[in-house]
């Protein structure tokens, strides 16, 4: 119709102009840069596929990686006929499924694990030597993978120490101090007592545990080698001897003592027993935690409610760290992160914050979550939570994306402590 009224030449020119305009119109957006949003609330982890490894190491590694909250383990059914370890692998073919593919095999009691990136087909092979604890081999492999992918040190090959109470309502109640792998497996009781045992704390070398024991009917702080069982009393002063915390150098123990009546924070030299008072308030100052070598964060009700404060290890004025809610206590510091219990309207949750910043994130969602302890890399928090009437161990990732309940011996599990990196 238009062609009847418009000369063909003009029509062509118009069509050409329109074509060019459309071309430019379409081309222009392509010249615009992409703008994307990345939210902290994302639940996605790094997709990783783990092939079967003889001996089931892959299961341990999967659980470790899942627990970190950094990974999304791809269901094994998603990839069929993956070439066995040793055979050529075109990992790029699986880039839409996973970022990494893990294959491996047992080797001389240990493991040989191959991590392949599907984006660039880059392969990394790790050889994990054998260990009397086979699970540790898998944890070590998991640490390697974790570190390779996240560029953070893995903390799967670590230990947990915790106290269980059995028959807690009867006269036969028993307190046991357990040491287990970080996933709760292979728990080993290093101390059993009918009297309360509490507040275990790992020495920086991860070979000793300081704990409070009422085995002499009064509270006393002991240090025990977990391998030899040899223990030494550090403090058994009048009043409360509680909440020991190893300084990072392993030479000092911070503790809460009520020498002057109200519990205050003291630092005791492990080697010579020299005691240094850190806090002097009339309020309850307890649950010290080393923040670096010269700073101690502790719980105090000096403000009217339990709050977290920070003070110098040599003493001095304390700085309040928490202001949210009426209850903030039980700080544990690792990798500049501070995990603590925050209570709000009768509920107690695990929260995480930066030592130097005020903001915090709630990690747990239980009603009575207690005793948070950070993995040495600060990526996970183990805590106790009430489950079926008993406290049980749980681990949550620092981003709260992953949460696992750990298997634990029978009884009420209390006060877990995450060991430092293991040297052996």
């Amino acid at each position: 119709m238009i062609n009847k009224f418009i000369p063909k030449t003009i029509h062509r020119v118009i069509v050409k102009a329109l074509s060019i305009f459309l071309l430019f119109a379409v081309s222009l957006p392509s010249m615009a840069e992409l703008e994307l949003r990345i939210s902290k609330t994302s639940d996605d982890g790094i997709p990783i596929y783990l092939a079967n490894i003889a001996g089931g190491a892959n299961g341990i590694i999967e659980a470790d990686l899942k627990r970190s909250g950094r990974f999304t383990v791809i269901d094994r059914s998603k990839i069929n006929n993956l070439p066995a370890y040793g055979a050529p692998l075109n990992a790029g073919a699986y880039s839409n499924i996973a970022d990494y593919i893990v294959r491996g095999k047992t080797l001389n009691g240990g493991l040989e694990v191959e991590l392949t990136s599907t984006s660039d087909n880059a392969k990394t092979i790790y050889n994990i030597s054998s260990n009397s604890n086979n699970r540790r081999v898998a944890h070590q492999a998991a640490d390697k993978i974790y570190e390779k992918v996240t560029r953070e040190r893995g903390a799967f090959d670590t230990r947990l120490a915790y106290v269980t109470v059995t028959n807690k309502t009867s006269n036969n109640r028993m307190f046991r101090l357990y040491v287990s792998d970080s996933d709760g497996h292979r728990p080993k009781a290093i101390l059993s007592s009918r009297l309360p045992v509490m507040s275990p704390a790992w020495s920086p070398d991860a070979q000793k545990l300081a704990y409070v024991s009422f085995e002499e009917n009064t509270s006393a702080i002991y240090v025990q080698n977990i391998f030899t069982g040899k223990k030494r009393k550090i403090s058994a002063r009048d009043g409360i001897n509680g909440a020991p915390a190893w300084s990072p150098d392993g030479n000092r123990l911070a503790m809460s003592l009520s020498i002057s009546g109200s519990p205050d924070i003291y630092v005791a030299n492990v080697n010579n027993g020299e005691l240094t008072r850190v806090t002097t308030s009339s309020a309850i100052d307890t649950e010290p935690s080393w923040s670096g070598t010269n700073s101690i964060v502790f719980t105090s009700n000096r403000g009217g409610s339990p709050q977290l404060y920070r003070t110098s290890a040599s003493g001095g004025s304390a700085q309040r760290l928490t202001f949210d809610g009426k209850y903030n206590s039980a700080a544990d510091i690792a990798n500049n992160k501070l995990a603590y219990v925050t209570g709000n309207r009768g509920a107690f949750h695990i929260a995480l914050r930066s030592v130097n910043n005020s903001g915090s994130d709630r990690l747990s969602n239980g009603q009575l979550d207690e005793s948070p302890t950070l993995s040495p890399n600060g990526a996970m928090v183990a805590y106790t939570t009430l489950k079926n009437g008993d406290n049980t161990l749980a681990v949550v990732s620092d981003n709260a994306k992953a949460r696992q309940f750990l298997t634990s011996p029978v009884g009420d599990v209390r006060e877990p402590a995450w060991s430092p990196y293991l040297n052996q």
Partner: protein
Amino acid sequence: MFKLIAKHPGAVIGAVIFHLLIVGLFFLSFDWTKKPEVADAGIPISLVSSDSLEPQANNVAEEESAKPSEKDLLKEQEIKETLKQEKLSQEKRAEEKKVETEKLAQETLEEENKQAEKTRKLEVLKLAALKAQNLKKENDAKVLEQQKLVKAQEQKQLEEKAALAEEQELAEKKAQEEVNEERKIAETKKLAEQKRTAEVEAKKRRADAAALAKKQSEEKKKIADEKANKEKAAEKERLAEKVAQEKAEKEAKRKAEEEKLAQEKRENEQAERLVKKKAKEKAAAKIAKAKAAKEKAEKDTAEKLAAKKAEYQRKWQEAQIKKKADAAAADAKQKSDAVAAARQISLEKERKGAQISWGSRVQKHVDRRWHPPPGTKGKQAKVKITISNSGFIANGINIQSCTGSVEFCSSVEEAFERSEPLPRPPGKYNFSKSDRTITFKMD
């Protein structure tokens, strides 16, 4: 006729001159010598007619009766012989003169004939030349009307030819008549001469007879007469024979002349015909040539025209084809442009889709590797990076803004550091640098 005469005045003048020459020759051919008296001649002359032959015989009888004597006879014989010798010499002279005159006349005639023939030939040649010239002119002037003109010319030529032929015929006729006249005159003259001779002889005989009658006896006179008669007869016969021979010779000569003339005429005619034929042939050839040239020219023109037409047609067709091809090409280009534009749109959509898809993968990739410090809710950062085709960050991590703590901002940077290598841009689309530049809003 008059037209032809008027057209060729030279021929008319020539013909008049020719006639005047003939008339002049005719008069010159007369013997203007004084007619001899009978006494002087010794031989009485009387005109012999058929009616007078008988009386003559009677006279012979009378003469026989008056036969002279022998002495007289001898004397008379001597006289006779002398007279005879004189007469013979006279005759011989006359004859010689006559022969000379005739010869002269003949030569004149021949000369005239030759002249006339030459003139005629010249005329003919002139005519032919003129005709040829005219023809040439006419041919040159009017090639296209050549045929008609040639026909007209041919008609004219025929008429001229006819006129010339008629003229020639008339001239020949006149010449023939003149010749005949001359011949007649010659014959008359001869007869007169013969008659005169006969009269002279009769007179002589009569004189002889009278002398014999007087001098000799009748017998002797008779013998002498007989002898004389015999001799006379012999002489007469001889003369007759001579005359006849001469006549025959003349006739033969004339015939030869005539034959020659006829031959010449034929030859002339032949030549003329040949000339005409040649001229005709030449003209025809010329016409044919002109015709051929014309036909050739026409053919050439027609061919040129046809070629020009064909060329024009070809060019027109080529122009049409080109026009159609151009139009088709333009349409095809338009369509192809439209298709290309649509394809480009589709490609751009696809490209854009691919870019978004790739961006989404990058987003997830970074998101999975970002571990912000706890308690940074509400903190934001804006980061701009350019990703190389191999998936690495090309020009550093550009944190454009960050509202969080140092730890938070560091975590953002660390997130990108630990994200390398990032998902590579799809090589299929050859993304530009800007296509590979992404701004992240992190909160």
